[in-house]
């Protein structure tokens, strides 16, 4: 061991270690969370990652099809009765529909919310070590994405941009304890804050807390964003599936099942601008 510490190898390893510590110190002191190397590594791994995603996507679809065999067999029987050319046309039509589904949804949301400036993004990686289901999308600051931008699907809110690189961004989901979304019950207009905890994120859910104990929120109610600050008003977050009293205060807590398929989503939309963005809301 003593010989190792005197060797040239050790000096090289030690100098790398010290350089890394200095880099970490400098980045931490200036509040930067994206290392210069990250963008380079992301640029190198992105094309290979896309290829692997394509392969794993095929495998996943294969097993999904295998699991849904009974349903497919029934559908197949029904389809046999139809004219072959009609089926062929239908298949082509369905393929086209699937391909355009995402972009149509994207356009629909844009149509409904003319003030939104949105950036469609594909999920390029999921962090296996993140307990809150965080993931990385293939759009970054070069595409106008900034920290704090809301991330949605056509169904509802997914989370927000937690970190931005040049060509990629890391999304913090609403299941994370770092998420604090000002929210209202759409039926009763009772207010609360939506965020995550480990307990709920394990079930794929989040919680709405700080609900007044005199409120009339009920199971089955839909929760939407209250607007102001980071999130535009009226984006559906999820459905209340249970209500309990908060052990630490006199308020209520509701377990919310997100309407967006956070763990199964392939594409998301990042809202890079909306009217009223940055104007402080009740909780954001």
């Amino acid at each position: 061991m003593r010989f190792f510490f005197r060797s040239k190898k050790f000096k090289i390893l030690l100098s790398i270690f010290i350089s890394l510590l200095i880099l970490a110190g400098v980045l931490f002191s200036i509040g930067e969370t994206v290392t210069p190397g990250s963008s380079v590594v992301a640029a190198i791994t992105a094309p290979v990652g896309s290829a692997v995603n394509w392969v794993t996507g095929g495998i996943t679809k294969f097993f999904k099809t295998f699991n849904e065999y009974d349903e497919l067999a029934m559908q197949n029987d029904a389809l046999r009765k139809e004219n072959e050319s009609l089926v062929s046309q239908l298949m082509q039509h369905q393929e086209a529909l699937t391909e355009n589904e995402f972009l149509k949804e994207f356009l629909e949301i844009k149509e409904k919310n003319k003030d939104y400036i949105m950036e469609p993004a594909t999920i390029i990686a999921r962090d296996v070590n993140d307990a809150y289901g965080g993931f990385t999308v293939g759009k970054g600051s070069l595409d106008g994405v900034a920290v704090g931008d809301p991330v949605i699907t056509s169904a509802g809110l997914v989370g927000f941009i937690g970190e931005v690189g040049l060509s990629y961004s890391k999304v913090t989901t609403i299941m994370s304890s770092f998420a604090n979304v000002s929210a209202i019950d759409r039926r009763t207009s009772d207010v609360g804050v939506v965020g995550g905890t480990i307990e709920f994120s394990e079930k794929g859910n989040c919680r709405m807390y700080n609900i007044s104990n005199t409120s009339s929120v009920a199971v089955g109610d839909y929760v939407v964003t209250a607007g102001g600050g980071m999130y535009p008003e009226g984006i559906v977050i999820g459905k209340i599936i249970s209500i309990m009293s908060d052990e630490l205060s006199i308020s209520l807590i509701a377990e919310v099942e997100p309407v967006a398929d956070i763990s199964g989503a392939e594409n998301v939309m990042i809202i890079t601008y909306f009217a009223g963005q940055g104007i402080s809301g009740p909780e954001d």
Partner: protein
Amino acid sequence: MASSNIKKKKRLVYISYAVLLMLIYLFEYSANISSPLGKGSFSLLVPATIISGIMFKEWAGAFYGLAVGAAIDVYSQDSFIFSTIALFVICCLVGLLITRLFLNNTFSAIILIWGATYCFYLTKWLFCTLFGGNTEAWSYLINITLPTAFFTSLAGIPLYLVIRTVYRKIVNK
């Protein structure tokens, strides 16, 4: 002639291990494969990187750790340089310990994989979760970090035995 063959074989072993790590990385971080959230999650990439320190000793292990750590940090939600530093140091230390302090046998390798995995996850929790301002840091330690470290270190044992068997065959060929 014999020395050039040994060099070739060494290069093949190093390159193939790098390819193996890259494949594990790409599949583990694939957008289409959602791992279970919380207690059931584990990583194969972390023990595979630690095993590089055990198999190829401190020098190569440190560089595998450096490369894999940097790659993990790109898509990590809570660390931006931690994994780079931690895996670099851990793989180097593991490589040093297996030959210079331990007996360089299967049992000591398993102990080192176990210890190094726990060391990685616990320091990550300390720097990225507790010091990172997570409001439920202690709950995260009990419910996420410790079970993940346990399952990951458990997965590391068969992984080590498989990798060792395959590489012994390559070297002896």
